[in-house]
């Protein structure tokens, strides 16, 4: 910064004043975010290197990398990592894929389209604990759930979804919440597509599939990158849905990294171990963020 100022031409007093005003207005938000992102990070790093258990004060002192070692060799951790990736990727595929198709569907003119759209996007506004309970009890409950009743009605034995396929069911519930978000954004993008462009493609003899591939999809790429970015932020830390439906179980069958750290820290009071998990979560998120922010940044003109 100093170097930049020194290299540029001499500035008038008012120019420096203008810069100062700009900085002054920006600084509260920047400083508070700086503190918010650095202090806890530093603390997590520190805790991850010490022995620290909230209910066992005899355990203390420098632990080195033993927390990490302990975690990395813990099969639960590897499972939770795998489950995190499965959840993020699965929901992204369902919501972006389904969202694109639905966006095109709801771009078509049909009777009552406005109301249908409103119905489709509604799940996005439902709080995660409610949607988790809703699905767990009203929909998928093996005895009282609507889906179970429907299966019985066609002569099938109802399945206890959350016990048999815990991860898949959680993924489905989360997809139900996030698909509408993708539709919301992608539909706006589809609507902003110049209809003349589509007509020109039709004049060139492009069928619906060719139109989709060569006109619609490229047009949607920016919006898709926004959807992927925002959803990833939230999907990396799915918590309420798991906590409410399966509590990570059975065993660790539906435990993701967020839930594992939570259970280590607040259920087992192992601050050191939980912090090591936190550091790993941050590293993973940053790797994802690097790619995402880059690709989104390329797609946004700032």
């Amino acid at each position: 910064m100093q170097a930049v100022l020194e290299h540029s031409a001499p500035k008038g007093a008012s120019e420096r004043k203008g810069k100062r005003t700009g900085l002054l207005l920006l600084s509260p938000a920047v400083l508070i975010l700086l503190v918010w992102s650095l202090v806890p990070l530093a603390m997590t790093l520190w805790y991850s290197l010490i022995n620290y258990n909230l209910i066992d004060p005899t355990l203390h002192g420098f632990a080195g990398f033993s927390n990490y070692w302990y975690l990395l060799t813990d099969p639960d951790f590897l499972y939770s990592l795998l489950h995190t990736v499965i959840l993020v990727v699965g929901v992204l595929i369902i919501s972006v894929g389904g969202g694109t198709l639905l966006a095109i569907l709801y771009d078509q003119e049909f009777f009552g389209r406005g109301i249908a759209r409103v119905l489709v996007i509604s799940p996005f506004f439902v709080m995660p604990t409610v949607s988790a309970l809703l699905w767990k009890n009203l929909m998928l409950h093996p005895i009282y759930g609507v889906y179970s009743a429907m299966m019985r009605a066609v002569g099938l034995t109802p399945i206890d979804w959350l016990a048999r396929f815990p991860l898949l069911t959680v993924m489905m519930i989360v997809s139900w919440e996030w698909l509408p978000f993708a539709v919301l954004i992608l539909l706006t993008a589809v609507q902003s597509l110049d209809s003349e462009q589509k007509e020109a493609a039709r004049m060139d003899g492009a069928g619906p599939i060719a139109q989709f591939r060569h006109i619609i999809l490229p047009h949607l790429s920016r919006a898709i990158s926004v959807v992927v970015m925002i959803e990833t932020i939230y999907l990396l830390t799915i918590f309420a849905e798991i906590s409410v439906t399966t509590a990570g179980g059975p065993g660790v069958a539906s435990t993701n990294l967020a839930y594992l750290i939570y259970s280590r820290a607040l259920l087992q009071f192992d601050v050191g171990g939980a912090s090591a998990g936190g550091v790993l979560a941050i590293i993973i998120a940053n790797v994802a963020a690097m790619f995402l922010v880059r690709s989104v940044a390329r797609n946004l003109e700032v």
Partner: protein
Amino acid sequence: MATLELKSLRKTYLTEEIIKGISLSIEDREFVVFVGPSGCGKSTLLRMIAGLEDITSGDLLIDGQRVNDVEPGKRGLAMVFQSYALYPHMDVYKNMEFGLKLAGVPEKERSEKIQHVAATLQLEPYLHHKPGQLSGGQRQRVAIGRAIVRNPKVFLFDEPLSNLDAALRGQMRVELSALHRKLNATTIYVTHDQVEAMTMADKIVVLQKGVVEQIGSPLELYHHPRNLFVAKFIGSPPMNFFSAIFQNGGHDGSSVQLRDGTLLHVPVSPPDILPGTKITVGIRPEHVELAPASDDSGVVEVIERLGAITLVHVRCADGQIIVVQTDGFTTLEVDTPVSLKLPPQHCHLFAPDGLAFEACRRHPLAA
């Protein structure tokens, strides 16, 4: 009372110098027009005067006071923007009131001033309309009204008429001139439009790439362009140019030889150049004379009949096209052979560095 003084103003964006040292003084009540090709820095210079852009170096003086570091609102200027920049959430009355209110003018005085300005600009019926409900011309008037009510020392206009259609532009041009005569305030006006520049200005400043090419009255620029750039830029249709060889010259004029061998004795005194130097001759379309062909010196290629005048594009023997302006009654037709006559008193000569030869006698209207 307001005079402006620009002392070698410079503006640098990052590393690029946009305004390269402009000095200029503007008298009280003068109407000064900045013209120049797109991107030459007209708006930047105007905004530096307004205080919306910082001045990298140099001094800006208003009434002798250095105002480089004075806030835009405190410089006593008012600006009319190309896009009007009306406050869309306020009605016409509030738009005009805003500046007065900020200046702490009492309610009653505000109302009187606004009523007065609204009457001048025929805006009374619209005082309680939002800008979105007005036509382009009305918005333009509101923008002007907003500038007038503050009774500024200097008016700044940045291409204020360029968003209007041709008819309205003509009308507003006349209104603005009348307004200036009435208010008698110092005015700086940026435009692309030749007609606006020629008709409204007391003084035109021709800019190119951040430097001043010439400052002068409209007719001074027309009759005595200082260099090739100004000669090309002022006048529509533009001046014709062809190359020639400088023969000799003195205080009473210079002799040049055209490519077809014709000798011209032009009443301009040469700078310090050698006989045999290749120079440029310029002559405006309205000064070239057409004669029925006695030889094959030219052929009519295109005829543009504009009613009152006719533009005849003549292809010369060497292939160059020369535009000639004649009256609206000419019976010439395409492909007719014609010969051209260049009255030497109307010719301009330009040295290889682009500078014009000094005229021996100044034009009476451009003295």
